[in-house]
């Protein structure tokens, strides 16, 4: 990630604060910009931490932040925005992987597929991720904020307090959203 890339990224991030900013559009742009970097970043981070402990999504998101954002130029609020986007990126990463992975397992017919054994054992895992992703999309249609809470918590590894900051609501509200989401998703996933 070069300085100029970093500056570009920060500039886009800061557009969030403009009057009448097209927030979904900006989020999408940022997501696009950071996704590939995040992947490589995560790979490297994971390898460094392989001995001893597993990867912390928060550590990853933090790392991404350091790499991608010029900290001196952004407010805390922008940082919160970033966390949200990073969580979205992680979700996409997992879903993409699951999708590709299960497609590969079903077999395209033409090509032998080599998969990492440590990960290739359990196809159920792939379906679980996909199921959660789909359920979460459905849930977001009724309760967008609660769905966001799930994304930040599950995919972004953020704590309740951090989520409250990111979403600019009280910790109590986040607690409530999280409880509701667990129940709703719990029923949805078990009924499948």
């Amino acid at each position: 990630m070069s300085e100029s890339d970093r500056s570009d990224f920060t500039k886009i991030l800061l557009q969030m604060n403009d009057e009448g900013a097209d927030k979904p559009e900006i989020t999408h742009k940022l997501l696009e910009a950071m996704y590939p970097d995040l992947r490589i970043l995560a790979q490297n981070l994971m390898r460094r931490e392989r001995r001893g402990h597993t990867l912390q999504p928060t550590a990853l998101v933090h790392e991404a932040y350091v790499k991608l954002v010029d900290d001196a130029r952004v407010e805390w609020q922008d940082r919160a925005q970033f966390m949200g986007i990073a969580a979205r990126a992680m979700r996409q990463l997992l879903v993409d992987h699951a999708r590709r992975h299960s497609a590969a397992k079903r077999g395209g017919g033409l090509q032998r597929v080599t998969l990492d054994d440590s990960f290739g054992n359990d196809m159920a895992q792939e379906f679980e991720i996909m199921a959660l992703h789909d359920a979460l999309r459905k849930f977001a249609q009724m309760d967008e904020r609660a769905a966001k809470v799930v994304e930040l918590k599950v995919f972004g590894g953020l704590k309740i307090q951090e989520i409250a900051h990111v979403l600019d609501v009280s910790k109590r509200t986040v607690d409530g959203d999280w409880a509701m989401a667990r129940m709703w998703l719990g029923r949805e996933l078990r009924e499948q």
Partner: protein
Amino acid sequence: MDPKRYTRVKEILLAVRTLHGEARHQYLDNACSDDPDLRREVESLLPHDTTAPAILDEGALEERIEGALAHAPEGMVPPPLPDSIGPYRILGVLGEGGMGVVYEAEQTEPIRRKVALKLIRRGLDTDRVVARFDTERQALARMDHPGIARVLDAGADSSGRPFFVMELVDGVPITEFCRSENLDVPARLRLFRLVCQAVEHAHRKGIIHRDLKPSNVMVSTREGSPSPKIIDFGIAKATNQSSTDEPALTQEGHLIGTPEYMSPEQADGSGNVDTRTDVYSLGVLLFEVLTGEMPYHFDTHRYSEIQRVLRETVPQRPSQCVPDGPGADRLRKQLSGDLDNIVLMALRREADRRYRSVERMEDDLRRHLEGQPVTARKDTWTYRTGKFVQRNRTGVAAGGVIAALLIAFAFTLARKSAEVVVERDRAVAAERVASAEAETARQVSDFLANLFELSSPGETHGNSVTAREILDRGAERVDEELADQPVVRGHLLYTLGGVYHGLGIYDKSEEMLRNALELQRDELGPRHADVGRTLSLLCTVLHDTGEYDQSVEAGREGLAILRESLGTQNRDVALTMSGLAVSLQSSGNLEEAEPLFREAADIFLELDGPESDDFAWCTMSLGYLLHAKGDDESAVGLYETALATQRRLFPQAHPDLAATINHLGGVRMSLGELDVAEPLFRESLEMYHTLYPDGHAALGVVLHNLGVAQQRQGRYEDAETSLKESLAVNRRILGNDHPYVAFGRASLGSLFLEAGRMQDAERELREAVATAQLAFGEDHPRTGSAWLILGSALRDMGRPGEAREAWNRALAIQSAALPEDHPDRLAVRDSLATLSEAIDAAH
């Protein structure tokens, strides 16, 4: 659920989840007093508050994120990421391979850009690697092609490991791209042509890649169409251990790198690496792009094993390697023919026999895409080297054993080949350089060269021209165009006759040779050496059509003429002797055959020494003769000797080799070693299948022997399948009256006899006797054998009178034809004696 309703449900749930027991019930009663649906909804969600799915637990996804990210291309965990290597700042890992790690890196001087940096694994001599790269640097700099990633720099890191810096390429390996984009065959071929064009560009600049494989051919979509980029040009050469291109090995003799894409000349370390090495690797790549499979699979990295496989095996046709699945049949159809030929032409073991350049290969792909005939041909046909056909000697024989009576049927096809003819052509041309006949020789070569040059599209019926079509057209043209040049015409007819015989098309071969003979006698005189050569070949052809008497006659005349004009120590003379000996043996005249084999063997030994194919062939033939005389032990010894030589001489499938293996199986079977015999037959069969994918009389013979071996192990169903298949092949290729058809019927009949299917047995055996009478004559020992088995069947059916009659006929024939102590004769006498006793006892 509408939003209002959801909000209400959420409100109730969040309140009630903190309540327990009676309080919870009261709250619910109140909140949902007039709405049972609402209550049901709440109560269906509430239990999940305490038992949410594990996937939502804190940290539940960590491992999966790790898994998703750890899905590195080569499944290896690299060392920690360095901050920088040389002047390059490291940004991340792009991939890993056997040779090392590829990083995404940033270059600051002379311009700021992202690059790919390949760090070579420890253990290679940095100074030499870098020095070797430096020698290629200028050549590499001259390459300028959109399909080639530029190599920018090379150096060493702080610990002395060499690295290369390349243009950063996005995209995925070509095989992955084709699969994920689900490209159809034409699209794959168009993409592959672009790859060929890039490689050709490099070749023109004097750079050979040496390590083409999917991970070095990256494809991305540019402006809506797939665009390949080849990486690592110049790197394989620089990183090779030695300047002679020997493969990199570990101390234990294990190969470093990917063996599947390695050409035979790279694997054998001969150092003969040139642009055709890349042609080979492109062949492997195309194979994989089209089928998803690779032509060779190596379960091992053991170098000696890889060498052995490359040396001894022939890749299957791509169309035969398509894995089952949706669309598999269609794909097989698309690949068979031209594309099979194109891929296999690139994959030929000998570089000389591959496409001469990548451009030619690319051109063939273009032709195929445009529906034009391609230049690639099945492996049996080589044009450029001037070799007419591959060595195509067919010598098949075996102890086809009739189980019940231990009578060995001797099957043989004479060995004589189109190649012999062509070799003669060459020798003759050399002899005649100074004479007026040089012109004849030249015209013959021109005509043949012409014939095999690719015919223009308008002249061909389909997209590709089969060998048979070329020959038939050639035969027509000989008559049309050379009517006024009888000598040239005679010579060409002789040559074509040899080629038809080599392909197993016996009727055409005989026709050509008889016409040649007539012309040559008229034009050159009846005692000319060419007349002798044609007679010699005719002897072989007539043998294989089962006309043994005529064959012997032609052989004798041919041998006399050739001895007269060429002396005794001559290859043509020796070849004619061994051909005549085969015919004599087949006609039952073993006594005259044996000295001829021995004399021919002596001549070959004198001419070529013991390590020669002709001498090995004669050794084997002699073994076969001793086998036929009942001396199995001596036969085994001779076969083993011949086989050892042939295995050294022919690392791949070869007709001589296949014949000896079949013979050895036959004698092992006679000795009762069925577990040794069966695998030998199978090996021989497989070899013939490889050599003659379109069928050949040899296949019928070996199938017969396999069937007999199966029968003798009590596997009647397998045996019936093999024997019937053999019979079908023989009838199709040799006709209904051929001796082998008689043998086949006799064997099938004796199988039925042994399996207790008496009606089937009698029917088949009576057919066998009738066919034998036609094929051999009434008094031939083989006809006697057929009577013998029929007698056994009749005895077992409880018809002793008819049995004795049949056996008496057999004995009468054998007494006249076989020595007194011949095992067949003894067996019949014993049988008759036993039968007589039984009949007498019954009276």
